[in-house]
Each structure stands twice: as structure tokens, then as C-alpha cells.
């Protein structure tokens, strides 16, 4: 599935995304030069520790960043549309029906003043513009909603429709939110750490649901997580983020077999140590994520890097293109095949 590279298969292609926030004390750049591509039926994982810019990247793609945000792209292709300079009203029309989000906190995603059924009603109404069939389905939205909920493992959907969000558990709400997203039949589904706020058992169930969906649907998935094990289980390809930059991108299996970037190597070592639960102290990467307002002048990972050398502290490394892999690390300068 990941082999096909003909242009028509690409659901989302982004080149040179930069994003940041206007703060009271000036502009705070967060995301720099992010490029990624997701094909139909493919799951692209974005992985990185908390604060690395995964959510900002995701929200930038959907034009959902707060008002003080600024975003810039070189290229933003979505399906057969060039949305680089699209006006906001036209872009709003893509949201929901063409691209939808499963959020990290399902409790926060619902209108607390309205019943779950109201959400389904509104979403089905929103899908009515897609086709006459959809319009027909919107009229019988109750049955359609109950069917969808059954698909995502909610047995008594008719009861859930009559309940307020605060009356339901996080796991139940996350299923309901996934059902809402599925009602759109979107071409792109962004899931931003959809299980982080759930307990372990529910997390497992929701992950199984995602795996099932991704087999069943033809949509492109972007799956954001900080958990290597989840990424390994779900994603076809992985983009590793660090301090607002993609530092490594490639096929999941290849990255796990042979991580190139020192940060990826560190992440994998930590994940392995976690799995074996061997030592009392985890083998974590020493140091911490730099604050976006106070980035080191060279490679952003240099202060924590075990392989750091002189140039790393002075130069921002570009993305080097290796066969089937992109790495942002000077160690691989000589392996670059694109000749940047």
C-alpha cells in the first residue's frame, strides 16, 4: 500500500510549512520547514515528545490554529486541490466533509450544553451537501447515527443520543467523536493522540478500532502520538518531530530496524527499555526539549546529542534525502541523494 507513488494517490502534500504565534513579547516561531505527504489508505504517524509541535502541525493543516497564529506554506495540495492560497470560507467547507479530526480530549470536543444527539444531527445536516444520498441520510439521521455508533462499538446508541456529554465516559465520548468523524466520510482523518487521555483498557480498544477503520476505509490518516509502540502498531510511515522540525521520516519498519537520527535512536532505546521494564531508571535521553523562544543556534538537538560535533552547534542542518528516508542530521550529509 505504501509502494504506490503515483501523484493521484496523494491525499495531502505539504512543503515548507512554517508556523508560529504572535505573542505580547514578539513573534514565537514553533514549526519550521515541515514537509509531509500522505497517500489514500495510508497512515502517517507524527511522533515526538510533548511540546515538539505535533498538535500545532495538525491544527495548522486544518487551519484551526488560534487567531494569534501565523502560518506559511510553499505547497499545500489536498486531493486535486491547491489550497495554498485558498480563502478561509472555501477552506471551512473542506473541514468536516473532506478532512476531520479526532481530538486528544474527547470530553472537551463536545458542546456541554447540547445532547450527543444534537451533535450527530448537526453533523449529518452538514454532510447533506455532499450528495443526494447524504441529504436523504441526514433526514433519517437518528438511525444513521445509531448504525455508525454500532460500527465503533457503542451498543446502545439510541440511549447515548439522549445523553449530555458530561454523562458519558471519556472512552464512550471518544467512540462517539470517531463516529461523528466517520459520518463525514472524510478523505483525510487527523487523530491527535486520541487515546492519551484514556485508561489502558479503553486505549487498547480504541487503538484496535483505529486499526480496523484504517483497513476498512480508503481515507488517508495522520496519526499523532508520543508513543513509539502505538506508532509501530498503526503507522505505515513515521515522521519524527523534534522542536518543531521533522528530524526523520521514513517507513515504520525501516525506521525501527535502522533509526538514523540520534534523536530517533534515543526514542527507540527509551521505548525498548520501557517495554522490557529492565532497569529502575529508564534509559531516557538526557536533557530536555528547548523552549521554542530559545532555540540553540545550530541543530536544535545538538545540546542533547551523543554524536554532536563542532558544526552541529553552528549550522541548522537541512533535510537530507537518503533512499526511502529523510534525515535532518549532518552525519548523513554525504549520503544525500537529492543533492540539495
Amino acid at each position: 500500500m505504501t509502494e504506490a507513488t503515483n501523484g493521484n494517490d496523494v491525499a495531502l502534500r505539504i512543503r515548507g510549512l512554517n508556523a508560529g504565534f504572535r505573542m505580547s513579547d514578539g513573534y514565537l516561531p514553533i514549526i519550521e520547514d515541515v514537509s509531509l505527504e500522505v497517500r489514500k489508505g495510508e497512515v502517517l504517524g507524527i511522533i515526538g515528545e510533548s511540546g515538539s509541535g505535533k498538535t500545532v502541525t495538525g491544527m495548522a493543516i486544518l487551519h484551526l490554529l488560534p487567531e494569534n497564529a501565523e502560518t506559511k506554506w510553499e505547497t499545500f495540495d489536498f486531493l486535486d486541490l491547491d489550497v495554498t492560497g485558498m480563502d478561509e470560507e472555501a477552506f471551512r467547507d473542506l473541514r468536516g466533509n473532506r478532512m476531520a479530526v479526532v481530538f486528544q480530549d474527547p470530553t472537551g470536543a463536545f458542546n456541554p450544553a447540547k445532547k450527543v444527539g444534537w451533535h450527530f444531527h448537526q453533523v449529518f445536516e452538514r454532510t447533506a451537501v455532499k450528495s443526494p444520498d447524504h441529504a436523504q441520510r441526514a433526514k433519517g439521521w437518528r438511525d444513521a447515527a445509531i448504525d455508525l455508533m454500532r460500527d465503533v462499538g457503542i451498543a446502545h446508541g439510541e440511549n447515548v443520543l439522549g445523553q449530555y456529554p458530561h454523562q458519558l465516559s471519556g472512552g464512550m465520548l471518544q467512540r462517539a467523536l470517531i463516529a461523528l468523524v466517520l459520518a463525514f466520510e472524510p478523505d483525510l482523518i487527523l487523530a491527535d493522540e486520541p487515546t492519551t487521555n484514556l485508561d489502558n483498557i479503553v486505549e487498547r480498544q480504541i487503538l484496535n478500532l483505529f486499526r480496523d477503520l484504517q483497513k476498512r476505509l480508503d481515507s488517508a490518516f495522520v496519526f499523532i502520538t508520543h508513543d513509539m509502540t502505538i506508532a509501530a502498531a498503526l503507522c505505515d510511515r513515521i515522521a519524527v518531530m523534534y522542536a518543531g522540525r521533522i528530524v526523520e521520516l521514513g517507513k515504520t519498519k525501516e525506521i525501527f530496524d535502522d533509526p538514523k537520527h540520534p534523536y530517533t535512536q534515543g526514542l527507540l532505546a527509551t521505548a525498548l527499555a520501557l517495554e522490557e521494564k529492565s532497569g529502575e531508571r529508564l534509559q531516557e535521553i538526557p536533557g530536555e526539549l528547548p523552549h521554542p523562544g530559545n532555540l540553540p543556534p545550530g541543530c536544535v538537538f545538538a545540546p542533547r546529542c551523543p554524536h554532536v560535533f563542532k558544526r552541529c552547534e553552528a549550522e541548522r542542518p537541512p533535510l537530507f534525502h537518503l533512499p526511502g528516508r529523510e534525515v535532518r542530521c549532518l552525519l548523513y550529509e554525504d549520503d544525500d541523494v537529492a543533492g540539495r
Partner: protein
Amino acid sequence: MGFIWYLIIRLGGALVTIAIGAVFVFILMQLIPGDPAIAALGENATDENVAAFRRVHGLDQPLPVQFWIWLTGIVQGDFGTSITLAQGYPVWDLMVQRLPNTLFIAVYALLIAVVIAFFAGSIAALRQGKMSDTAATSASVLGISMPDFWLSYVLILVFSLGLGVLPAFGFTSPMVSFSGALVNGALPAFAIAAPMAGVFARILRAALLETKRRDYVTAARSFGFRDTFVYMHYIFRNALIPFVTVIGVQVRYLVGGTVIIERIFGIAGLGSMMVDGAFGRDYAVVQACMLAFLVFVLGVNLIVDIICAFLDPRRTH
């Protein structure tokens, strides 16, 4: 189910508050120095006359007995008799004349405040940081910082003495002419409303801005809902809950407002009657007015709570 219980509990709570309030009101009046007999008969009254006055009006009885007589009277709908203000008149009759005026002014002021706040607060929040926000926010601060009695005189100066469009003094009872009451009550109602409108507008603005940042608003936008839809059904709808709650809290200031404003504009209402009664040491009158205000505040609070319960399913479900 849940809601009926909620209502019963709230009503019970209000009754208990009124009962406790009655005790307080009674004790408070006794603590105020001064003698109703002197107030009624004058400084030069003879001791016999004073003693006779006290006997006639039951003031020679022990306090608990006086309290008991008063309380049992109220339960039966008898608020006692005025002893100095309108000698011999049942307090209830005085109240019935004046209550509509006060209620009218209070509700009029509340509506003006809510309407002004609705527009000022919404505009300020929708256009945060822009000129109209600054204008609306400054107007709110101005409204809050103007004392109501001062504003009353300014309004009288401008609209009555200056432009001559609205009367400065005298008031038509809404029972006599509703439109007359609307015109004549405009200045006093606005004087009471201005500071409240300022507070309400700021609360609404803050609530709207706070709600706008909520995750569910981002989620709503991720569904591709239109901006106006998101504003009405998500942002405004949820900001309404703290807004209405604050209205309930602010209602108590309405009472203080009417007491002062009724004096200034010469409105025959409960507030001015209470002040006159206090000067005349007319215990029954003052106690009845205070109780009426207490019931009014509790009543509005109850209504506000019921509205909130409807607005916020988390409270009742």
C-alpha cells in the same frame, strides 16, 4: 425528575432564608436607636401619652412576644399597622400601593442593563482589541464608576432641565398608565441600570472570550460549521451561563439602587417608604419593606437559577 427535586430544594432554601431574614430584620430594627412614640408624638410628649402610645401599639410587650405577634400576623397576611408614617393604616395597604412602582423600576432597570450589556459585551468580544472593543469596554468602566445618585442628577440636568424631553420628578404608576410609567421611569431606570450594565457587559465579554478559546469551539470548527452557527450554538450559548449567574448575584444591588433613586426622582415606591419609615421609627413598615426586598431578591435569584438550570445541563442531570 431531577429538575423538580432541584426546584423543591431551592424553594425550601428560599423559605428558610426568608424566615432567618425575618428574625434579622426584627432584631435590626430594635438595635436602631430612637423611640417610635417620640417620633409620633414629638419631643414634648408627656410621659402618660408616651406610655399610652406604647400600650396601644403593643410596644410595652417583651420583645419575643412582639416578634411572635408580628410573625404570626405575617403568616396570615397581616403586616401590622403603620404607627407613625400613615397612622392607623395597615402596612399591607401601603405596600400594595407602592410595590408596583418599585417592581416596575427594578425590572425596567434590569432589562435596560441586560440589553445594553448584551450588545456592548458581544461587540467587545467579537471585535476584541479593535476600536469598538475599546469603546464598549471604556463605556462599561464609565458605567461602573459613575455613582447612581450622581448619574441621576446628570440625567435630570441633561434630559429634563436641558432638553426637556423627560420629566425629572413624579412618576406614573404602571397600574395607571403603562406607557406613562415607561416614559417617566426612563431616567430613574437608566440611572440604576448604567452601573449594572457596565458590570454585565464586562462579564459577558470575559465569558465570550473565555468560551471562544474552549476546545469544543475548535472541534465545532473542525466539523466545518459556519462561524455564525459556532458563535450562536457554541460560544454565546455557553457564555450565557456565567452571564446569567452574575445577573442573579447583581440583583441585590438593584435594591440599594431603587432606595436612593426613588428619593431623588420622587417615586412613591417601597424604597422611599422604607427610608421614611426608618426615620419615623415605624417598625412594621420598615420590616415589611425589608422582607419584600428580600423576597424580591430571592425570587429573582430563583428565576435566574431556574434559567441557569435550563442553560446548563450539568447542574440538573
